[in-house]
């Protein structure tokens, strides 16, 4: 985009963000999936190196499970060089696969770099900063629009929706689980969500 075409949405409602998120993800994913065979490729979710997922990560995982069920594969990443090298080899594979995740900034930096090094296709990349009072998002792309939205911090539902879109072949909102916000507990964190298409773009 030219910088002039950038749109900045301030104080968008949760639903606005969800629509925006879904629309963008659908657009991006549709391009590849149209070229893929039968939408049956496996989905791998990369998870942080913490022993227990944070509320935000849990919400994301629930959305991914809702889309893929038990076919979903989980893989933990950490700062061990051998782990990152192994991931890069996976991302270099000819086998079609979708790799998604919601990682902390440090690990996400390594994963995005591994995707570049492996020649994989980054179909979704977004920053999310969650504080008790607001959630900031910034959608990144090669020349993408920048979307900065302040949203309601009391619910993690948008993360569930986001994961559902990133993990699923099509959006089926009836399958979405209901995630309750955790009242009385401040939710915070900084994350990067991503979707990486692995394998040759024009075969199944």
């Amino acid at each position, binding site marked *: 985009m030219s910088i002039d075409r950038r749109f900045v949405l301030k104080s968008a409602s949760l639903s606005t963000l969800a629509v925006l998120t879904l629309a963008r993800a659908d657009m991006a994913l549709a391009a590849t999936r149209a070229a893929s065979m039968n939408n049956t490729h496996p989905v791998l979710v990369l998870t942080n190196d913490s022993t227990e997922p944070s509320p935000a990560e849990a919400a994301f995982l629930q959305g991914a499970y809702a889309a893929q069920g038990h076919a979903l594969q989980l893989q933990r990443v950490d700062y061990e*060089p051998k782990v990152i090298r192994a991931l890069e080899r996976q991302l270099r594979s000819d086998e079609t696969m979708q790799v998604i995740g919601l990682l902390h900034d440090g690990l996400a930096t390594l994963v995005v770099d591994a995707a570049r090094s492996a020649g994989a296709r980054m179909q979704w*990349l977004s920053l999310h900063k969650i504080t008790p009072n607001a959630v900031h998002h910034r959608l990144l792309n090669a020349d993408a629009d920048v979307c900065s939205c302040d949203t309601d911090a009391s619910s993690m539902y948008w993360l569930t929706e986001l994961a559902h879109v990133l993990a699923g072949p099509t959006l089926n909102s009836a399958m979405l689980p209901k995630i309750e916000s955790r009242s009385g507990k401040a939710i*915070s*964190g*900084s994350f990067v969500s991503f979707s990486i298409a692995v394998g040759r773009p024009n075969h199944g």
Partner: protein
Amino acid sequence: MADANNGVLPRGVVQAEFEQAVTKFRALLGDENVLVAADQLAPYNKIMMSVENAEHAPSAAVTATTVEQVQGIVRICNEHKIPVWTISTGRNFGYGSAAPGQRGQVILDLKKMNKILKVDPVMCYALVEPGVTYGQLYDYIQENDYPLMLSFPAPSAIAGPLGNTMDRGVGYTPYGEHFMMQCGMEVVLANGEILRTGMGGVPGSNTWQIFKWGFGPTLDGMFTQANYGITTKLGFWLMPKPPVFKPFEVVFDDEADINEIVEMLRPLRINGVIQNSVVIANILWEASTAGVRRSDYTMEPGSTPDEILREIQTTTGLGAWNVYAALYGTQEQVDVNWKIVTDAFASLGKGRIVTEEEAGDRQPFKYRAQLMSGVPNLQEFGLYNWRGGGGSMWFAPVSEARGSECEKQARLAKSILNKHGLDYVGEFIVAPRDMHHVIDVLFNRADPEETARADACFNELLDEFEKEGYAVYRVNTRFQERVARSYGKVKRDVEHAIKRALDPNNILAPGKSGIDLDNYTG
């Protein structure tokens, strides 16, 4: 096959011209090595700077596997006036990462030129291609059981020696000043000719990686942090692995201790008792690499108050300043130097010495010891989690290795950062006479207001430091033009005269270090 249409074009190049160039790139390199689709280019554009991604969006990325292909790319770029931004491994995090310096530049990604051409365990040197990583070289040395040790920057496992040396990066061993250890390079010039520096131009020479200077003017330095050529081979010296390695830490509780720390360390560095690039890291640097996050202590916006910094010190056992150094040599040499070092710290009357035995596997000691002994790791990426949000820009002024100067710089930097609601996350890398004062300006790129503050902060850091006669040794691509001005008009005139002579079409990385024939007016 993706269309040559991701909506971004090189400066001054029309779509039809660009597509002709892309067609030629494909014929030269094959479709799989010419990336133009948005999802292929997105990973090149995860910048960490205080500007929109669009300002550093590439029009394409091409990968070469041979020097001949690099020559072919340069030829096509000249024919169509396409600016090309070269990366080696692309891991220049916080200095521009893998993104081009200017919007629309074609990235030449040399990651696939990753051959280790030679490692000589007797003469202790290596010759590598641009895509070789330190991790790859480490594995090679281990597999061959060579008694050699690497020196590298913190993203060690994935960064590469050619890129780091060409950007004049530093490491943490006695060979930590990497450009000083460089010996011989091969450069593809803008006209397609191949230059070998030093002894490399002499047919049959076996001293290309042995003797740096050759005959006549020594040219190596002018290709570093520059855009006069594309370096396709780099030689550098490797340190013999010492029989004994003794890392240690000294913990200082008071921020004001920096003056005495530096005054005590400088003679030990100049006289060679401590041979390696010592690090003096502040509390936030060390805490974040050990897994501490700001949100663990406060949710309040703005800079982190000193009371919280002291609380982190208390809960983690880290100091306001944490000194990391090591001794290398035979047991006898290390024993002698250890006594000198411990006596020096004892005479200071402050500072708690922590040995490797005492620290065990505790972070950040473990990764610091690994960096000082040439073992690659990625622990320092934890810095990005301190505040979160993906913003990171290194502000790296040079300082005298004099206590009062370091104290002055640290205070000045902290006051400016705090004024803009950001934290001082800094370290000094101690050479015998100079300090690389490295500060990570961390900010939340998801928040436009904070991003704007970070940008203003970085500008003010540059301005205020310049008023005191300080300048940075390296900077991210957002601020290259600004920093180039700090070094004066005459230097810039000379740099552009060289550019006109070597690259009259201005195709090689225009804007690198502020060198750009299209923008510079003298």
